[in-house]
């Protein structure tokens, strides 16, 4: 009996360890910087993590199937530049432009998914190809120049808030809720885990494995489209160099959140906590005036720590 209760405790602690770490870090930070625990700053943090959080949600779903999406940063740039271009050249309502950015992201994701699923190509390679294609198309479309002077209504998406909560944060919350429902309540979610856990078993169980594999990349592309809107509105311009190396931050949040890169294991809330952790570290180190050289080392150590905890958990 004793064994059993201890086993339960352990599981519980492991599951919520990440949250403890985040809270612990917050406590430490509020002691060493008087500016950390202020409403403005905390709102800053949650606004700042929106883009990476949304990308990481898409990334997590891809990683659950055992895949990886290296193209998210470039897709963000491409969707963003298209949205900015449409804002400049057309008078379409904002909602149409938002949808267009999402569609662009989804189409890029479809490219990834199609070749991964139906041509059995390695996700690493396919998304690497999309990464450079999307970046190239961004330059072609923008002629390498930023597209600025966007409409003020559009910029509200990046700056505005509703009931005191920044709009980017609200979008992140909505995306998170939708993603969670998809993964836990819909059969699609079960299929994602099954495909990642054991593709053959999933196929023998009559699951359309190829379609699931394709869909996760489309979802990641959609996440890119949404993130692109926020990013473009936040910096008030469509930037050809936007989103560079964002895939790495998204993967970092995913891994810190406990998702296995080999697929089949992971949770969306873990990813969000991972994104929050990265956001707090970033913000805290900025407030403490820590040189960016050290910031990168700290980030790397956190990723390593997360992996060590994870491999301990599985041993």
């Amino acid at each position, binding site marked *: 009996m004793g*064994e*059993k209760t201890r*086993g339960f405790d*352990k599981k519980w602690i492991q599951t919520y360890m990440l949250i403890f770490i985040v809270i612990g870090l917050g406590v430490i930070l509020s002691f060493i910087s008087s500016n950390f625990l202020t409403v403005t700053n905390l709102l800053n943090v949650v606004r700042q993590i929106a883009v990476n959080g949304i990308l990481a949600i898409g990334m997590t779903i891809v990683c659950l199937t055992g895949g990886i999406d290296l193209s998210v940063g470039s897709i963000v740039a491409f969707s963003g530049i298209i949205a900015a271009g449409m804002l400049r050249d057309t008078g379409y309502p904002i909602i149409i432009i938002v949808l267009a950015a999402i569609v662009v992201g989804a189409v890029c994701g479809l490219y990834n998914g199609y070749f991964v699923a139906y041509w059995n190509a390695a996700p690493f390679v396919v998304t690497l190809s999309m990464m450079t294609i999307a970046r190239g198309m961004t330059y072609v479309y923008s002629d390498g120049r930023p597209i600025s002077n966007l409409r003020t209504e559009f910029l509200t998406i990046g700056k505005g808030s509703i009931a005191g909560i920044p709009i980017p944060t609200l979008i992140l919350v909505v995306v998170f809720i939708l993603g969670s429902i998809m993964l836990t*309540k*819909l*059969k*699609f979610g*079960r*299929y994602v*885990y*099954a495909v990642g*856990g*054991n593709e*053959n*078993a*999933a*196929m*023998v*169980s*009559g*699951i*359309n494995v190829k379609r699931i594999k394709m869909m996760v990349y489309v979802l990641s592309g959609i996440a890119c489209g949404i993130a692109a809107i926020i990013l473009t509105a936040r910096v008030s311009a469509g930037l050809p160099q936007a989103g560079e190396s964002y895939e790495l931050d998204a993967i970092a949040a995913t891994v810190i959140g406990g998702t296995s890169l080999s697929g*089949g*294991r992971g949770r969306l809330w873990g990813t969000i906590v991972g994104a929050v952790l990265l956001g707090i570290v970033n913000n805290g180190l900025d407030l403490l005036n820590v040189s960016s050289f050290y910031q990168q080392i700290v980030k790397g150590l956190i990723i390593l720590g997360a992996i060590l905890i994870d491999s301990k958990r599985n041993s």
Partner: protein
Amino acid sequence: MENIVLEARNITKRFPGVLALSNVNFRLVKGKVHALMGENGAGKSTLMKIIAGIYQADEGNVFLHGEKVVFHTPKQALTNGISMIHQELSPILDMTIAENLFLGKEFCKGKFIDYRRMNSEATALMERVGVDLPPTMLMKELSVSQMQMIEIAKALAYNAEIIIMDEPSATITEREIANLFEIIQGLKEDGRCIVYITHKMDEVFRIADEITVFRDGQYIGTYDADDIDENQLVVKMVNRELTEIYPKKNNKAADEILRVENLCQKGVFEDISFTLRKGEILGFSGLMGSGRTEVMNALFGITHPTSGTIYINGEKVDKPNPRKIISKGIGYVTEDRKGNGLVLEMSVYDNTILPSLSKLSNRMGVVNRRKALEVAEEYKEKLKIKTPGLQQTVKQLSGGNQQKIVLAKWLIQNPDIIIFDEPTRGIDVGAKTEIYKLVANLAEEGKAIIFISSEMPEILGMSDRVIVFYEGKKTGELSIEEATQERIMMYASDVEKGGA
């Protein structure tokens, strides 16, 4: 006394939540074959892994030639003359036989690998285990039994004094087993100790000198093979009498439900035709790699046959794929539970309802969790799946319970035809009997069953009709009345054609 090569005293090993070994003892005598028996989870493999340096004991000591030893890595054990051949072989498939044999101790000339010497040494080693293969052949081109022989040769390469074989016969055929036994005999005469872990009763009495029995992590006893008989041994292992292994069958064959005509897959099998009727158990026999599983994979739409037709309920099936076949009422309990039967990281609940999710969710794809839980619970009870709860991940369950989950997956679908491919492999005697009973009951309910097995008694005990395969061809079909071990064996090795 000097004859004792290795002794393990009072070994205790805990895994999270499980006491795998409790204060067990074990000793090995020079030049003897020592069988290790017990149901799955009895602790046999765990003890051997401690001896081979893969795990470390929490308590207790291991003595090699009277000296206390602690191995932290398999490499340490190996250099001390202890080699373990694992149940699941893990050779490097894209390397040659010679490279695999000398992995980690390559012969070198200066900085460069001396391939010529390695290849000639490999040939010499293989000769000793009676394998005649070019040392430059890639490992992936070998059959499972050949790989096993290479593993044994590898043990010889390290000049191992103690060779531990974990269920070596689970994946190889009768004839190959005979070959294996010959080699074991040779090793024994050489003065080496063999530890032989198995579930198969007949093998134990053919090969073992001594038998040690474990049950639930406890040491039950060590017996001289001449002093104990099969029934006594079973009682020691399961602590209950097995009155009857195979159930009484009351099934009756009715209308034809499945017809396969001239199914071919180039280079794999050819011209396979057979029929299956409701309420019938059709046995598929033949050696490993004779094409039984491959035919089933093609029938289920996992691979694509080059020609031939499949009729289900008289209806021709075009371009089969698993989804289509499932919808036509076929379920497939695959040979390889871990490979394509279960998602090991997922829970009992998730695995059980996986193929039924479409039926358990609404048009929007939202799963009706309450209903799904009810169904999973119902089948857990029905099949007596032993698990702490539905949310337990299946990788922590025993082989027998895993197999039942695979079965539950399909029973929920209520299929008309169920294919069982080696359903009892690697599971213990008690669980086997339960599986047999379930299969018989299903046939009685009018389900049509294809039952594939390498174990002859199983085929004879369960089937109504037997089809025998040899090298991708159907070589014979026998009714249960005509079938005997000898006749099946003849067809399975193609000794004699026809004669039914």
